[in-house]
């Protein structure tokens, strides 16, 4: 049906509209390796000095980039593993088992899933202080996982729902226990869901900003998002090229994961379930 309309006007219009984004992306990369001419923004000479934060030892009071990266990795991966493994079991229960109170659990799941978690930040901050988990990586990990869980359980339940009942019935007929059926027969069927959720919650943890900012502000538990934002807010060294290089360093894992796992991730993003 596209035969008698030329597509170039639309392409042109879309390009024009996308121009701000394109300019930002292009300069984000160019500025990592160049210095602008004085008083301008156009690149004039090649340099690697914007990456010096990778090898220079930081001054006292500043965090070392590799420590921060390590914290970020621990935070993102632990959250991801916790969310996925707990969702794997609970999703199965809610999808397949007739436990008492199932209706309430499901209704609660939908409600929590829709609930805007960021509005809880004040109470979470105070609760963590009372619990003594304030300013620890463990505290942020637990909170982030708990807030992500309703979404994870929801996604996993969706994947379990698509597995045919016949597989399970056959397993039970052959005398296997429910646990064996789940582990040996059902889990392989929902592997795409597990992978997607692992990746998604890793990315979500890697990008998280407000929770670490509020719940773990001290410098030894800093993550890359708070490190970068503190750098930008520091008036003493205003250097966009440095900010951008740190930003690129921060975003590299995200971009790689996105390129490699694009199709798997689209299962979740395309579900239109979480903004």
């Amino acid at each position, binding site marked *: *049906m*596209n035969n008698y*309309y030329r*597509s170039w006007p*639309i*392409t042109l*219009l*879309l390009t024009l509209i*996308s121009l*701000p*984004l*394109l300019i*930002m*992306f292009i*300069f984000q990369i160019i*500025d990592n390796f160049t210095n602008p001419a004085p008083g301008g923004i156009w690149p004039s000479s090649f340099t690697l000095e914007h990456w010096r934060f990778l090898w220079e030892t930081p001054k006292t009071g500043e965090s070392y980039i590799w420590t921060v990266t390590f914290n970020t990795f621990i935070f993102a991966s632990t959250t991801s593993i916790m969310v996925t493994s707990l969702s794997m*079991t*609970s999703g199965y229960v809610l999808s*397949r*088992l*007739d*436990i008492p109170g199932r*209706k309430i659990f*499901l*209704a609660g799941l*939908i*409600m*929590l899933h*829709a609930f*805007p978690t*960021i*509005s*809880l*930040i*004040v*109470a979470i*901050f*105070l*609760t963590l202080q*009372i619990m003594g988990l304030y300013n620890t990586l463990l505290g942020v990990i637990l909170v982030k*996982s*708990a807030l992500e*869980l309703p979404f994870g*359980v929801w996604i996993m339940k969706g994947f379990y729902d698509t597995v045919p*009942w016949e597989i*399970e019935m056959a397993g039970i007929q052959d005398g296997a226990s*429910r646990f064996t059926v789940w582990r040996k027969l059902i889990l392989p069927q929902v592997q795409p869901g597990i992978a997607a959720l692992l990746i998604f919650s890793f990315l979500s943890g890697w*990008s998280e*900003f*407000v929770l670490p900012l*509020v719940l773990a502000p001290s410098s030894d538990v800093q993550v*890359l998002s708070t490190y*970068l*934002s503190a750098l*930008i807010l520091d008036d003493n060294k205003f250097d*966009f090229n440095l900010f951008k290089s740190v*930003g690129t360093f*921060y*975003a590299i894992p995200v971009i790689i994961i996105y390129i490699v796992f694009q199709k798997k991730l689209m299962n979740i*993003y395309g579900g239109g379930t979480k903004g």
Partner: protein
Amino acid sequence: MNRINWFGFIFISPVLIMVLLFFLTPVVMTAFFSFTNMSTSTGIKGGEYLINQETIKEIKKYNIQNDTIEKLENAGYSINEEGLKIISEKYKESLSNEIKSLYFGEKFSNRKDLERALKKLKKNKIKKTRDRKEIAEIFKESIINERFDSKSIFEENLIKLEIDQNDRDVIIKESYTGWSWTNNNFKLIYSLPSSYKFAFYTLIYVSFTLTFNVVFGLFLAISTFYLPSKTASTFRTIWFLPRILPPVLYVLMWKWFTWDTGFISQMSTYFGASPKNWMMDSPVHAWTVIVLINGFVGASFGMILFSSAIKAIPSSMLYASEVDGANRWQQIWNIIIPQLRWPIMFTTAYQTLSLLTSFEYILLATNGGPGRSTEVWALAAYHTALQNYAGNLQYGLGATYALVLVIIGIIASLFYLKFFNFKDLVTKPRIEG
């Protein structure tokens, strides 16, 4: 049957515990905190009893007996290490030692008694009355500035000072440094003009961003639908990147784009304008940038949802319309848009809720400025309770701001529950234990 139930509960309990502790507890606690006057100065974990000059000022406002303040200030005299140390520094060490050997640990209810005792010193006679007076004053004890952990000990001390019941209650109430229950937060929010401003800004923020998201998402979905698939997927990738990138980096790119050393300023110099901060120089610019920052992320949400909905339209419908002579506008208006009714409604409902409570991008971009012209409700809650320049964080008031959002969230979630086809969801499992 029982065995299966146990299996199910073991499988689901970790999630229940986590959600209960870190998700449902904060929901309840928001309401709890909003009825307190918790702040940096009261602390979170309860407080102690302390009378200082501030407290005395407050106490004087009540209808108390004339001599109560005096009683508080003069709680008698006692010979203790602190006083002796001052004596040895100010006078002679031998004097200090003699007082210590004679009277250490003793208490005197008034100054005259102590002066009489000081007269009895043998080795270091204090000749002048004025000196005796001065030395006695050093050992003066006062309940002022002394900290008490528990109410009962504090009250006992007040009773010792012969302060009557009525005044004791006033003093106890005013000298407590911890938090207490109050409904002042609600009154305050209701009476403050700034809360109406925050609400108004939130309205601006949500309505403009939402409109941008839906219209732009529709535009992207429909326009890429008509493009060859390679070009289309290139554009979709470009528009999807803002969603993938970490917010801190994404907003950093916008800062570079709009600030005075950035792209727009550079371009405008070619037209003779001087560089300026296009994000922060006026409220209108700040709002424009904020709507764009959020909109460019939000548009991709609509784009994905609408794209897949358009793909689901049977192509025979589109062919048929073309055979009937419909042009593209008619095709879009009469066939595609009506088919997108549900996705559009879903996007609107969903994004309204998340925009109402979100403040991450505003915090990163303008932090509520210039002035407080982009301070939305959720950001006000954050600033009140968790970060402000004054340093006195008002947890209780901030929680009250947050409570409004939590209640909206609960109502919206209930609505969501109805919206969903709940019966489908709870179809009984086919294998019974």
